[in-house]
C-alpha cells in the first residue's frame, strides 16, 4: 500500500506531497513500529537479551579463555569436578569444559548462521524464479524439488558428509542442501500471492520491468515471512548440526563442538554425568532463545496473525 501511496503522492505534486509528509511524520517508521511491538513481548525480550549476552561471550571467547585452553590436555585434570578454577569441570582428556563450550559455540553458531544464509539465498532465488515466471519454469523447479525432497534430508546430509569428509565447508554444503527446500516453497507461495496484489499491477502498469518489480515491490513485502523463518531455522540448524556432530559427522576433533562434546561425554557418562549437562544446556538455551525471538518477530511483523 505504501508504494501506491507514494506513487500517487509523486503524481499529485507538491501540495499533496507536503500533506503526505505530515502523515509520515505522525506515523513512526516501520522498523520503529516493529520494534515497539516486539518490545511489548516479555518472553521475546528475555530471549533477545540472553542471546546478546551469549553472542558477546562467544565473540570475546578468546579473551575469556584462549583457544589453547580448550584443546590443552592436562592429565591431572581428567574428569575433574566443577571447581573455582574450572567452573564447568574438565572432560575425559583433562580439557577445560567452559573454554570448550565457548569455542564450540563459536563454531556451532557460525555454521548455523552461515548455513541459514546460504540456504535462504539459494532457496529464495529458486522460489522467486519459480513463483514469478510460473509456467514451465515453475513446473520444472517444483517437480525437481519434489523428487529431491523425497530423499529424507538427514540421510542426504549424512551421505554428503560421509562421502566428502567432515569439515567446515562440507558441513555447510550438506546443511544448505538439507534446508534450502523450505525456502523454495515459502518464497514461491509468497511471490505467487504478492504478484496478484494491486500494487504490483500498478507498478507493471507504470512500466516497471521484472527485475524492478521483484526487487523493489515483491521482495520487501515478502521479507517479513522470510525473516521469521530464517530466525527459527537458525535454531533448527543448531540442533541438526549438533546431531551430526554427535554421530561423528560434524567438525573433526579436537575442535570443540557441542554435539561432539556430548558424544565424548557419553563414553564417560557413568563416571562424570555432569559432562553431559553443560553442552546439552548450551544447545537447549540457544535454541530456546532463538525460538523466543523468532516467535516475537512473527507477532511483531504481522499483527494480524496474532489474535
Amino acid at each position, binding site marked *: 500500500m505504501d508504494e501506491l501511496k507514494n506513487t500517487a503522492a509523486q503524481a499529485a505534486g507538491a501540495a499533496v506531497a507536503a500533506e503526505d509528509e505530515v502523515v509520515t511524520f505522525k506515523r513512526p517508521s516501520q522498523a520503529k513500529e516493529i520494534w515497539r511491538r516486539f518490545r511489548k513481548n516479555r518472553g521475546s525480550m528475555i530471549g533477545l537479551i540472553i542471546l546478546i549476552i551469549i553472542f558477546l561471550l562467544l565473540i570475546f571467547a578468546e579473551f575469556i579463555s584462549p583457544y589453547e585452553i580448550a584443546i590443552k590436555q592436562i592429565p591431572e585434570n581428567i574428569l575433574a569436578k566443577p571447581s573455582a578454577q574450572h567452573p564447568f569441570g574438565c572432560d575425559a582428556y583433562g580439557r577445560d569444559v567452559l573454554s570448550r563450550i565457548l569455542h564450540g559455540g563459536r563454531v556451532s553458531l557460525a555454521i548455523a548462521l552461515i548455513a541459514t544464509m546460504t540456504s535462504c539465498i539459494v532457496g529464495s532465488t529458486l522460489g522467486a524464479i519459480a513463483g514469478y515466471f510460473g509456467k514451465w519454469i515453475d513446473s520444472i523447479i517444483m517437480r525437481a524439488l519434489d523428487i529431491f525432497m523425497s530423499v529424507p534430508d538427514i*540421510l542426504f546430509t*549424512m551421505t554428503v558428509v560421509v*562421502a566428502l569428509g567432515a569439515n567446515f565447508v562440507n558441513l555447510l554444503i550438506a546443511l544448505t542442501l538439507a534446508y534450502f527446500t523450505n525456502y523454495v516453497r515459502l518464497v514461491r507461495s509468497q511471490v505467487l500471492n504478492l504478484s496478484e496484489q494491486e500494487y504490483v499491477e500498478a507498478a507493471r502498469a507504470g512500466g516497471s520491468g521484472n527485475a524492478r518489480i521483484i526487487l523493489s515491490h515483491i521482495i520487501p513485502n515478502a521479507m517479513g515471512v522470510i525473516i521469521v523463518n530464517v530466525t527459527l531455522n537458525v535454531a533448527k540448524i543448531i540442533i541438526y548440526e*549438533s546431531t551430526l556432530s554427535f554421530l561423528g559427522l560434524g567438525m573433526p576433533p579436537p575442535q570443540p563442538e557441542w554435539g561432539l562434546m*556430548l558424544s565424548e561425554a557419553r563414553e564417560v557418562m*557413568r563416571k562424570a554425568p555432569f559432562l553431559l549437562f553443560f553442552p546439552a544446556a548450551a544447545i537447549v538455551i540457544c535454541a530456546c532463545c532463538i525460538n523466543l525471538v523468532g516467535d516475537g518477530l512473527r507477532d511483531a511483523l504481522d499483527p494480524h496473525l496474532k489474535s
Partner: protein
Amino acid sequence: MWKYVLKRVLFLIPTILGVILIIYAVMNITPGDPGRAMLGANASQADVDQYNEMIGYNRPFLTKYVDYIKNMLTGDFGTSYFTKQSVFAEVWPRYSLTIRLSLMGVIISTLIGVPIGIYAAVKQYTLWDTIPSIISFFMAAIPTFVLGMVLLYIFALKLNVLPSFGTTQGLKSFIMPALAMALPPSAQTMRFTKSSMLESVRQDYIRTARAKGAPERTVIWKHALKNALLPVITMVGMSLGMFIAGAVVVERMFSLPGIGSLIVDRISYKDEPVIIAGTIMIAIVFTIVMLLVDVLYAFVDPRIKAKYAGTKGK
C-alpha cells in the same frame, strides 16, 4: 479424486528414477571406491582394481544407471558390493525394524500430544494450558540425541530397568528409542492440536450449537473436536515419514539395526545397490503415506471431497 490418486502414484516413477540418479551422481563425484574400502589400505592397487571390476563398479556412470533401472524392472534390485547378498534380503529386515520403531514413535507422540493439546485448548489460560505449553516450548529445543542420553542415564544407568543398546530384550529394547524419538514431536503435535482446537471453537457452527442449547460437553467433544482433528490427521501422517527418516539418530545411539544406519554404514563402502534400494524404499513409503493422508482427509471431510468433485480433471 481417483484421477488425482493415480497422478500421485504415477509421480512415484520419476521420483524413483530421480532418486537413483541423485545417488549415482553423489557416489560418482565423491572420492573412494568399494574395492579399497573392502580390501583395506594395505591391499595392492591391482587387487582393488580387480575387485571393482568384478562387482561392476567401474562401469561408466550412465551405464550403471540404465543397467540398474533395467534390472529393477525385472524385479532384481542388485547384490550388495560388500556382503554379496541380494539387496532385498539385506534391506528388508532392517526396514521392518525401522517401520516398527517409527510406528511406536508416532503412536506415543500422538497419544501424548493430542489429548494434552485438546485439554489445554479447553482449559485455555489455566495451569492446564500454561504448564504443558512451557514444557512443549522446551521440548521443541531439545535434540533427540540429548533426550536419548537423558533417558539412557535415568533408565539404563541409574535404575537399570531398560537395556542401553541392541534388540535382545524384545519390546523393552524399543521403549527408550521410541520415547526419545517421540517426545520432541509430541510437543509439536500438542501445540498443533491446541491451535487447531482453538480455531475450531471460534467457528460459527460452535456458536450455533451453543445457541441451540447443546450441553457444553457435546459442543466440545462432538462439534469442535471432530473438526479440529482433521488437520491433526495430516500432521500425524506427515510425522510418520519424518520418523522413518529421523530414526537413524536413535538407531545409531541405541545400536539398533535399522534402515537408516544401514544406509549410513554403507556410504563409506560405496555400496550403491544397498544405498539405492534403502533410499527408494523410504521414498516410496513416504509418498504412499502422504497420499493416504490426503485421501483419508478427503474422505473424512466432505468439503474437500466436494472440491475434488467440483474441479474435474484437476
